[in-house]
């Protein structure tokens, strides 16, 4: 076996602290994919990175099988940043012409790359209803919509409208006296391309989006989608030319302004909450959504056995790993959600909703795993006192 390490891999391994691994195997033991029988061993990946055998690492299916949910890192006693390792190795693989086999025939990746090219004027805001107050160019608060309008167009048969959460977020902002900037020139944040390894197109998107927000003069950037938030908070940082605005998740913004939100009495509901990986483990935002659920009248939160830091991923991020194991994870997770006795599964990322909705389409299991889903913003918007 060749053990000569190419500089790139050594650098990547170094950055991710792969060298610190002492081979305890906790990562593989906790990996949700490995637990349902998928051929993924984070430990093996870390070891391979340390050995630096490029071919072995980048052509290994396991590289794209990882959900990058970060559960393994949260357990790692040596502090190996596994997601970071995967992220950078995928870029290396992409550079060498190795790409994931994309679900949906790569349609969503094409959509993102078209936005990266820019040049077209998207029809991005036709979902805005008259009651929503927004401005398109300048303002103190920029509301980042994410790509929910595209998802709804692409998944017409899922019986979910991810745009509901987008509209609800604006409704709440309006109630707080904020007329946010909602820009027709927003483009995909590039999260999925970045995690697919396509750094070049990610950078095109990052530059455009950072410039767009900078030029709005916004001091605060409010984001609903957990993936967009992670991207803005972490991956966009090097692209800011001026000092970045305050970047907040919609739940953080709502939490900060809870005192100014008046709620009406509600039909009593028990809900359970799915922590999106990007929001939770990647950014540490566990409490704001819970504080909001707590503040809503007549809403009781019944936590799943695995929640917060221990939460299990919806198993579908980045439109690159969708398979039998992902489905297994989703089914288990939905069963877990149902076991709490909750009437609704609440989440704060459109992707969680899409992937769970897809899992619920199962012709054999649907009654066992079917549970209505709500985005936390819609729950808040519906509870607003008149």
């Amino acid at each position, binding site marked *: 076996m060749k053990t000569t390490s190419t500089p790139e891999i050594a650098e990547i391994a170094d950055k991710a602290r792969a060298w610190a691994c002492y081979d305890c195997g906790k990562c593989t033991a906790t990996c949700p994919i490995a637990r349902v029988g998928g051929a993924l061993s984070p430990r093996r990946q870390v070891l391979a990175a340390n050995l630096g055998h490029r071919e072995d690492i980048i052509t290994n299916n396991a590289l794209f099988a990882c959900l990058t949910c970060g559960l393994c890192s949260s357990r790692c006693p040596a502090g190996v940043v596994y997601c970071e390792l995967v992220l950078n190795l995928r870029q290396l693989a992409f550079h060498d012409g190795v790409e994931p086999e*994309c679900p949906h025939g790569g349609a969503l990746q094409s959509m993102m790359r078209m936005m990266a090219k820019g040049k077209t004027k998207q029809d991005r805001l036709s979902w805005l209803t008259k009651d929503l107050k927004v401005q398109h160019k300048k303002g103190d608060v920029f509301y980042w919509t994410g790509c929910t309008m595209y998802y709804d167009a692409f998944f017409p048969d899922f019986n979910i409208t991810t745009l509901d959460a987008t509209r609800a977020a604006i409704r709440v902002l309006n109630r707080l006296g904020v007329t946010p900037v909602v820009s027709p020139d927003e483009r995909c944040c590039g999260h999925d391309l970045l995690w697919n390894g396509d750094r070049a197109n990610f950078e095109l998107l990052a530059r455009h989006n950072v410039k767009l927000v900078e030029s709005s003069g916004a001091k605060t950037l409010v984001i609903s989608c957990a993936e967009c938030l992670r991207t803005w908070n972490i991956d966009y940082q090097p692209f800011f030319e001026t000092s970045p605005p305050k970047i907040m998740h919609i739940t953080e913004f709502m939490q900060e302004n809870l005192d100014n939100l008046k709620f009406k009495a509600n039909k009593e509901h028990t809900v359970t909450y799915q922590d999106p990986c990007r929001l939770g483990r990647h950014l540490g935002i566990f409490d704001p959504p819970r504080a909001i659920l707590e503040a809503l009248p007549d809403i009781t939160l019944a936590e799943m056995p695995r929640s917060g830091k221990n939460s299990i991923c919806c198993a579908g991020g980045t439109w690159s790993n969708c398979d039998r194991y992902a489905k*297994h994870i989703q089914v288990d997770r939905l069963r877990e959600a149902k076991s709490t006795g909750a009437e609704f599964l609440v989440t704060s990322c459109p992707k969680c909703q899409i992937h769970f909705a*897809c899992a619920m389409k199962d012709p054999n299991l649907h009654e066992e795993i079917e549970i209505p889903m709500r985005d936390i913003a819609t729950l808040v918007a519906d509870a607003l006192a008149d």
Partner: protein
Amino acid sequence: MGPEGIAEAPAGESTRDGIFVCGSAVGPQIIPDCVAQASAVAARAQLFLTGHRVEKHEEPVELLDVTGKPRIGILVCHCGINIAGVLDIDDLVQYATALPDVVAAAGSTFACSTTGQDELVELIREHNLNRLVIAACTPRTHEPIFRETCTHIGFNPYLIEMVNIRDQCSWVHTGQPVEAQEKARTLIRMGVARARQLEPLFEGEVPMMHSALVIGGGIAGIQAATDLAVQGFPVTLVEKEGQLGGRLAKPHLKYLYPNMRPATEVLEAKLKLLEESGARVLLNTDVESITGYVGNFEANLTGETEELLQVGAIILAVGADLYDPEEEYGYSKFPNVITSQELETMLVEDDKNVEIAGSRPRSASFVLCVGSRDPEHFPGCSRYCCPTAIKQAILLRRMGMDITIFYRDIRTISTGAEEMYREARGLGVLFIRIPEGDKVQVSGTDHAESVRCFDDLLGRHLEVPTDLVVLSVGMQPKQPETSKFHDILKVSVGLDGFFMELHPELGPVETPVEGVLLAGTAQGPKDIVDTVAQASAAAAKASIFLAHDTVSLNPAVSEVIEEKCRGCGTCAEICEFHAPALVEIEPGTFVARINASLCKGCGTCTSWCPSGAIVSKHFTDRQVHAMIDALFTTETSK
């Protein structure tokens, strides 16, 4: 030969044993009829050759090693001047040489000729190729030829990519050679890109049941069952009624045109042959359901005989219904307005004397195209009714009646029918043309008294007094049988509602469902001569399947990568052929599996699969994406 100087050979049999005639040598006919008849003749010829059935003949060849990095060879065909007259072949060869993974490129005057095929084999051997790109004509006609040549030398036939630079380039952009050249280059670049992604595929095999099921005991079913049984294939003929013969049987038909042979005589002869053939006949028996695929169908029979029958091939001979005129032309109102079928039944009882309500009509009017050539019912021509009306008119005329035939166009395409038409005219039968878009009016008080029609030539209305009106009713798809077998066998139905053949010229008795064949009027209106010919053709085609010990399966079908399958069932839901099905591989975990023998390779499931778990072999995402990428990547690089 007959009086017209054309071979006299009903259904292909000539007056000499062992000599058969088919196609236009029998009489003028269109290609679909020619092809059906040719197959029929082949079936008859086979009867003389019993014991020498079709055998699969293949010498084992050593397979060439096609693994490793693509080594692509390109043959650019001149097709004489067809391509070279417009495109610069040398430039294309040179251009192709520079494309990635191309190790050899050459021109060929006629790639499909024997010389061309030799050049191709030479190219493969000399350069140790593992992919082949042939820039020539359309794969739809010529891919089988190149595949066969390659198979013979052990080169996997699915590693060939054809680039269409003739039919879709030189022939249609003749006046724009610069653009055509650019297009040909791009198409070759795309072809090479796809070739790099091609994978060898291997035809699977499943055992073939050598028996057949014929559904419907009319003349078509009888003929098909006889032809197959005589060759030694176990045949089951299922008829839901209590007697065989369909419309030929009593009391439906008296004489056959043009020779006026009694229907009973013909039917008896056919039934005798059927009995001698050893075919098993099940009366009062229906087919409840059918599962499986070519070589391995399983039919659930119900009724007088109840059993699960396993067969290798199925011939659908369910026949057709006749149009019911209901209110039209006073049919339900006047006792003396009858259908051609009802007249025939009267003739069966007495062909010298026709009585309506106790009195003998002295005049009769025939109305043609009732329920045919009518956009509201059946826009097509029912084909049998013109000659039948003429035949009936002659019979009535001979009883002394005055006869008028109201027609749209007289279509006497079958052998001898035109002569019969002439005879009728000679006997004084009056023919009046119904103008386009118009209809005749039958009027009377308690019975029909006259038929009124506008005459285009005279420019005025004609009113013909009449004692009897005969409506020449057209054919309709047999219901509920047509819908039922469409549902259970997935045999396509055309816009006219009849079963649709695979291709009018290339497969007139075949269906898109392999091993299911069509005989008689189930496929569309036709007369008895054509029905018999088509039934024999269906039997001949069925025997080609049945003669084999195994069925080879098209390997270019869809396949599930089980690791990627989410078990959502979308594929199973959308497939018309029931090829994918969900299987529980461990408690609570379902994955789809595709039955390769049922899959037709359309790839619709692949495009609907949310997780990319289905691969359309030979048309994979990778292959298509490679073509798109190559289309837009203008620079060539090794």
